[in-house]
């Protein structure tokens, strides 16, 4: 039997606000337990939620970024369930009338083709707290700092047909929310959480199979692995004569498997109803227009601009717009460096390698964009060669100062004075008469390779500081 996989994703993005969705508590990550939990977050009797304007603005920004309808009127509802990290006994969410309606994103597949994936809806809700199941004398610890953190839950259509497509879609949404600045995208800290609904059906069948919901996925790599494990598991179940049950399954990265968490039937009985503590959310044209007017450049537009404005290849433009931090870094550096292609090579090459090696990122790079631009400028104006620049970069990375400072302190300034280079060339030629003789007697096609010997000697003599182009030109002149 040929099976077809059907995948839909639910992505919870934590909105990058200062304060919570319904209270004035801070949303900063990593605070001491319960120091950012107010009376509202603790669900004390008599308190009332008040909606954060920035949360609404961010939801509208997302809606506009994916060409979705933004609801002029949406309603908050109570989703009822009992769990100790949800002190009210219900989560404030949106149910029948979400703030963002149908939209669409375009993903690029590995073979270069593109595919449209529908977004069913995106709704606002509050996050729950955290349960810590380590041993507290047989009890569970509860930290409510995260309770009330604003979330935008983005629900896709079941449009994806493979784990790779699901990853491409998740990365696309990640790119959009980080570029428009509504989410920091940090998957390790849980700012961007992906749940996957996976089912299989015989190829050609229109009706959907029973789905399992995969949770606890905290990287794109695990998303792909979890889905692939689940597809194989479901095929095995059905081919062994069994039935897939609708349930939530947790992905275990250590064992690379999914396992049943709980049967969803009872848990699903959320008994939604409109929250009487909150009035309907009305969004007028003026509000939407203001959001659109201040919309940051979207990733696809930025990629296209990188190609046209800086003359970069499609590959380079794609790489540099991998994240907003990287794109911002590149633009700031290119402006100072004065050579976009050279800057691009440095950003994607030495800088990316160093960031990777030290497990940091563009936003926290020890060499700032301006500093890298100054280094590029010194290569471009022939103060240093590209090779010496690598040493300068290493020193800058180690905190020894800016490009000019390092060049000055280490005496790395390139020798471009023709007289000085000529003296070096003459000295090396005089010291190696045999090699000069061999060179002159060699075939023309062997000569370029043999020239390398002299270049090497001269660079050694000059401690790498002689301008390589000038050295090459002079050598050819004198040997020819």
């Amino acid at each position, binding site marked *: 039997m040929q099976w077809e996989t059907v995948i839909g994703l639910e992505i919870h993005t934590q909105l990058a*606000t*200062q*304060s919570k969705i319904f*209270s*004035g*508590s*801070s949303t900063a990550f990593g605070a*001491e*337990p*319960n*120091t*950012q*939990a*107010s*009376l509202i977050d*603790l669900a004390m009797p008599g308190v009332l939620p*008040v*909606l*954060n*304007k*920035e*949360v*609404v603005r961010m939801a509208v920004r997302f809606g506009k970024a994916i060409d979705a309808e933004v609801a002029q009127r949406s*309603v908050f509802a109570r989703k*009822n369930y*009992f*769990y*100790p990290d949800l002190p009210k*006994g219900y989560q404030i969410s949106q149910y029948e*009338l979400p703030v963002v309606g149908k939209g669409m994103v375009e993903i690029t597949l590995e073979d270069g083709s593109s595919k449209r994936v529908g977004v069913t809806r995106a709704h606002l809700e509050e996050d729950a707290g955290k*349960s*810590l*199941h380590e041993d*507290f*004398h*047989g*009890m*569970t*610890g*509860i*930290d*409510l700092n995260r309770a009330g953190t604003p979330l935008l839950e983005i629900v896709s259509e079941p449009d994806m047909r493979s784990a790779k497509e699901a990853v491409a879609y998740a990365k696309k949404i990640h790119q959009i929310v980080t570029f428009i600045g509504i989410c920091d995208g940090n998957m390790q800290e849980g700012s961007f959480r992906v749940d996957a609904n996976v089912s299989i059906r015989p190829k050609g069948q229109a009706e959907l199979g029973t789905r399992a919901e995969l949770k606890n996925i905290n990287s794109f790599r695990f998303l792909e692995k979890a889905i692939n494990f689940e597809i194989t598991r479901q095929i095995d179940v059905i081919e062994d004569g069994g039935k897939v049950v609708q349930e939530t399954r947790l992905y275990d990265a250590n064992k690379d498997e999914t396992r049943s*968490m*709980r049967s969803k039937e009872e848990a699903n*009985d959320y*008994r939604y109803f*409109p929250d*009487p503590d*909150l*009035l*309907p*959310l*009305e969004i007028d044209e003026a509000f939407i227009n203001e959001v659109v007017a201040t919309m940051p450049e979207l990733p696809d537009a930025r990629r296209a601009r990188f190609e046209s404005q800086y003359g970069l290849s499609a590959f380079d433009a794609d790489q540099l717009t991998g994240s907003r931090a990287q794109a911002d870094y590149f633009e700031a550096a290119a402006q100072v460096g004065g050579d976009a292609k050279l800057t691009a090579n440095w950003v994607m090459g030495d800088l990316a390698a160093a960031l990777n090696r030290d497990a940091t990122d563009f936003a926290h790079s020890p060499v700032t964009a301006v500093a890298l631009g100054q280094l590029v400028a010194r290569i471009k104006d022939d103060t240093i060669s590209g090779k010496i620049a690598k040493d300068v970069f290493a020193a800058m990375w180690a905190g020894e100062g800016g490009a000019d400072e390092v060049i000055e302190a280490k005496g790395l300034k390139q020798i471009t004075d023709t007289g000085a280079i000529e003296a070096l060339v003459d000295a090396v030629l005089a010291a190696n008469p045999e090699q000069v003789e061999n060179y002159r007697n060699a075939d023309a096609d062997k000569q370029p390779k043999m020239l390398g010997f002299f270049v090497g000697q001269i660079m050694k003599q000059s401690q790498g500081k002689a301008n390589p182009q000038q050295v090459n030109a002079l050598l050819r002149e004198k040997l020819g």
Partner: protein
Amino acid sequence: MSLSADDVAKIAHLARLAVAPGENAALGRELSNILDLVAQMDAADTAGVVPMAHPLDMAQRLRDDAVSEQNSRDRYQAGAPAVENGLFLVPKVIE
């Protein structure tokens, strides 16, 4: 509409209410009466009527995104039955 004893037990469980065995039948009758009233309202023609999300005919007011709360953990935890290292402790939850 008449609710069975099982329906009543399930509703009570979802609301985490302890219903004594003797109360089940009476509660079932009361809940059934409520549902009968809903069924009666269901008969009304509501085509073209926008569902009411709130009895007040007003829109939600929004507040600026600013941190206005200070850390008052000690005060808020003073009444908690059990705390440790700043955490509230609750009976073990097993997933």
